[in-house]
Structures are given as structure tokens and as C-alpha cells.
């Protein structure tokens, strides 16, 4: 196996007095697809938000590509990461949000072009060409000049994926990206993720309640319960033959169709 692209080492997170993550150890291999499941409030979102630098761990270390994300070395000492340190690592990570978070004042083409032009200083012309390609790939090639408000939820989420992909992250995070959608729109979004997963080279962490989907595309399923990883392993072992009582109990709320 390669060196992991992401390593959580005994990571804790508290909000006020409440410890929501109680020591997470988790390695993600390059190109690995990991499904993160668990009951509401178990800390799934918090785990990936810390990797996206939206939330700072209270304790422990997260490495990205061998570099410590939240601490940096300064005069031989480890100190809290500053903006430029976070900026230098964050480019490897991308995220798709539950509520899309598209920029409403820009067309969907502009949504896709913004970061590559500003952050990577790529030429506008080239970025435009790749953005159009990317939007075609998610099935929105004919909508590039529309504003987010003119799209359906499923279309918005596909734009959000195209926008995140434009930065070519090594790890993409998906936080329940279909749970804000009308049921009939879930399929089109899962389809795009499935295609991405097949392409292969990008690692993916998917927080999801779609158990069939997890079984289908994940290399590994991680079950989080009450701030700790209760059980993890091959999707079949976790979703079809769960060992721990808590996992069995949790899965009994879903129907998993093999």
C-alpha cells in the first residue's frame, strides 16, 4: 500500500464542554473511496469539516500528504497553523456540501471559473474551456449561463461538484450531498458520483445515508457512533454482516439491497 493521503491520529473535537469526537484514528489511501455512516449527531460532518479546515481539532493530528494540517513548524516548535499554511495544504482537498452553497450572484460557469482563475492564476480562456467541459460532464452543458436560482436541486448539486472538481483535489469530501434533494433528483447526483468513483484517481470520503450506494461504490465503510469509530471494513462485512450490536441496530433502520 502507498503512503496514506490523509491520516487522522487520535483526533478529538469539543464544542464547548461537549466532546463530539473522542479519538479518531483513520487513514485514507490515495484513490480510496470511503463511506462514512452513523447516526445523526455521531460526528460525521465534524470529521470531514476538520479536514476541509472549517473546524479546528481540539486535540490530535491530521496529516494531508504527509504534512501536518493544523500545526506548522516554526523555529523548531509546533505552533498553530496560520492562514498561509492552511492555504498551502487545502488545495488537495475539495468539498461538496449538503446545501450546495453555490454563489448566487454568479452564473454557473462563473461559479466554476472563479477559484481556478483567482487561486491558481490559470488563464481565463483555458479555465473557461475546462469549466464548460466539466459542466458538460455533469450534464449541464446547455445551462452554463444560468444562475443557481434557475436550477433544480439536483442540477445545483451537480454544479457544486463540477465547481469543486475544477480545483483538481486529491481528496473530495461529500457531506450528505443528496439529503436536501427531492427523492426523484437523488439518482442523477449519485450517478455523477458513481462516474467519478469509477474514474478512480481521486480519493473520496462520502458521508451518506444511501446504504446501497455505499455498498456499490465504497472500498471501505466506516461506522461512527457517539464520536468513535465503532466498526470499519469491507462494505459487505459492515453493511451485510455487521458485528457490533450498535451497527446492527443502526442498519436495521435501512433496507440494504445487495
Amino acid at each position, binding site marked *: 500500500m502507498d503512503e496514506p493521503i490523509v491520516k487522522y491520529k487520535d483526533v478529538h473535537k469539543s464544542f464547548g464542554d461537549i466532546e463530539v469526537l473522542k479519538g479518531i484514528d483513520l487513514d485514507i489511501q490515495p484513490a480510496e473511496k470511503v463511506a462514512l455512516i452513523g447516526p445523526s449527531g455521531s460526528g460525521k460532518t465534524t470529521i470531514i469539516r476538520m479536514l476541509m479546515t472549517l473546524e479546528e481539532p481540539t486535540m490530535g493530528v491530521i496529516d494531508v500528504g504527509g504534512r501536518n494540517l493544523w500545526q506548522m513548524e516554526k523555529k523548531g516548535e509546533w505552533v498553530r497553523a496560520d492562514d498561509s499554511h492552511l492555504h498551502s495544504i487545502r488545495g488537495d482537498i475539495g468539498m461538496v456540501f449538503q446545501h450546495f*452553497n453555490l*454563489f448566487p450572484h454568479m452564473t454557473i460557469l462563473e461559479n466554476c471559473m472563479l477559484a481556478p482563475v483567482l487561486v491558481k492564476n490559470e488563464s481565463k480562456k483555458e479555465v473557461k474551456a475546462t469549466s464548460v467541459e466539466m459542466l458538460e460532464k455533469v450534464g449541464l452543458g446547455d445551462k452554463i449561463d444560468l444562475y443557481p*436560482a434557475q436550477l433544480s436541486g439536483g442540477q445545483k448539486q451537480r454544479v457544486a461538484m463540477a465547481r469543486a472538481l475544477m480545483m483538481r483535489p486529491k481528496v473530495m469530501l461529500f457531506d450528505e450531498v443528496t439529503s436536501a434533494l427531492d427523492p426523484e433528483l437523488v439518482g442523477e447526483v449519485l450517478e455523477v458520483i458513481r462516474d467519478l468513483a469509477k474514474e478512480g484517481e481521486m480519493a473520496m470520503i462520502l458521508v451518506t445515508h444511501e446504504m446501497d450506494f455505499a455498498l456499490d461504490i465504497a472500498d471501505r465503510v466506516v461506522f461512527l457512533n457517539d464520536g468513535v469509530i465503532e466498526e470499519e471494513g469491507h462494505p459487505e462485512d459492515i453493511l451485510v454482516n455487521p458485528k457490533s450490536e450498535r451497527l446492527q441496530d443502526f442498519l436495521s433502520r435501512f433496507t440494504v439491497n445487495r
Partner: protein
Amino acid sequence: MGSLPDIFSTLMQGLKVTLLVLVLSIICSTIIALVAGLSRVSTNRLVTGVTGFYVEIFRGTSLIVQLFWFSYALPGLFNIHLGSDIWVAVLAISLNYGAYMSEIVRGSIQAVPAGQTEASIALNLSKFQRMRHIIIPQAVRMMLPEYGNYLIQILKATSLVSLIGLTDLLYYGNIYRSTHLSDSPTVYLLLLVMYFVIALPLIAFTKKMESMSKKGVALG
């Protein structure tokens, strides 16, 4: 009995001062509002503290008193002279309305949903780029309708400047009336009309901003 053209031509002599004070006050108060509004959402405690103090002082006291302070009290007490009377008026109006308007700037910036900032962090935009390309454009759309309302209020506030001796519309109206008492109704009717005509473009601007701002703002 003076004729209408007579009254009109007298009043017109004050138009220049009214318009000058209006335009300069709009420019200065907008700049002050932007700077103060951005300062209030800064993470630096000293910056937010100082601007907070400024805003409360100027919102908590009346514009007339501020006009008198800048024009008579400061020079008398501390020998501070702020320049010509026009600039004294512009400064007082701008600081007063800048304080009110900075609150809209602050409120609009804070009303941009947190998800917008999070998405731009996820795309690795710098702090400055986040403000410049994501937060401020959306905040501006939200603040424009109220901003237009304040511009109309600034126009009304300019009519106070005759109190510190500026020769604006109202000043000439009063001059004319004092010599032609029987023409009072005509003078004030004409003043009303003139102020309203000046307000028309500002009203149109506000309407336009209202319809524009309905588009392109995140709904959560």
C-alpha cells in the same frame, strides 16, 4: 405681490449649494459607511471598539446639534476650524448618516449565509478574495434598497444647513418670504416641489435597486 418667475429665480440661487452639499454628502457618507461597516465586522477588537463608539455617538445625538458643534463649538472651544461652511455641513451630515448607513453595511455583510464563506474556503480563496468576490457583492445587493432610502433622507437633511448660514434653497426661500410676507404659501409650495424634483432620481434609484436586489442573493 411677487410673481412666480420672481420667486423661482430667487430660489434658484440656492439650488447650487443644496445640490453641492447633497452630492458631497452622499459621496462622503458612503465612504464612511463602507469603512465603518467593514471595521465593525473586523476581528480586531480595537477597530470594532473605536468604530462602535463613533457609530453610537453620532446616532445618539441629533444632526442639528452636530452641525452647531462643528460650526461654532469646535472653533470656539478648541480653535479647530474645519474649513469653509460647506465642508463643515458636509462633514456633519456625512458623519451622521455614515454612522446610520454603516449599520446597513454591517448587517448586510453578516446576513450573507455562513455557507458562502465555507464554500469559498473549500475553494481555497484567500480572506481578501472571499470578501471581495463573495461576501461584499452579495452584501451590496442586500443593502442597496435601504441605501437609496438614506440618500433621500440626506437630501432632506441638507435643508438644515441654512441654520449654520449656508445659502441653500431654504435660505433663499426664507429671505424672499421675509420681504414678501403675503407670498409665503407660494414660496413654500415651490420649495416643496423643488425638493421633490431633486428627490425624484433618488427615488427612481431606490426602486431600481429594490428590483435588482431581489435577484442574485443567497436564500440560505
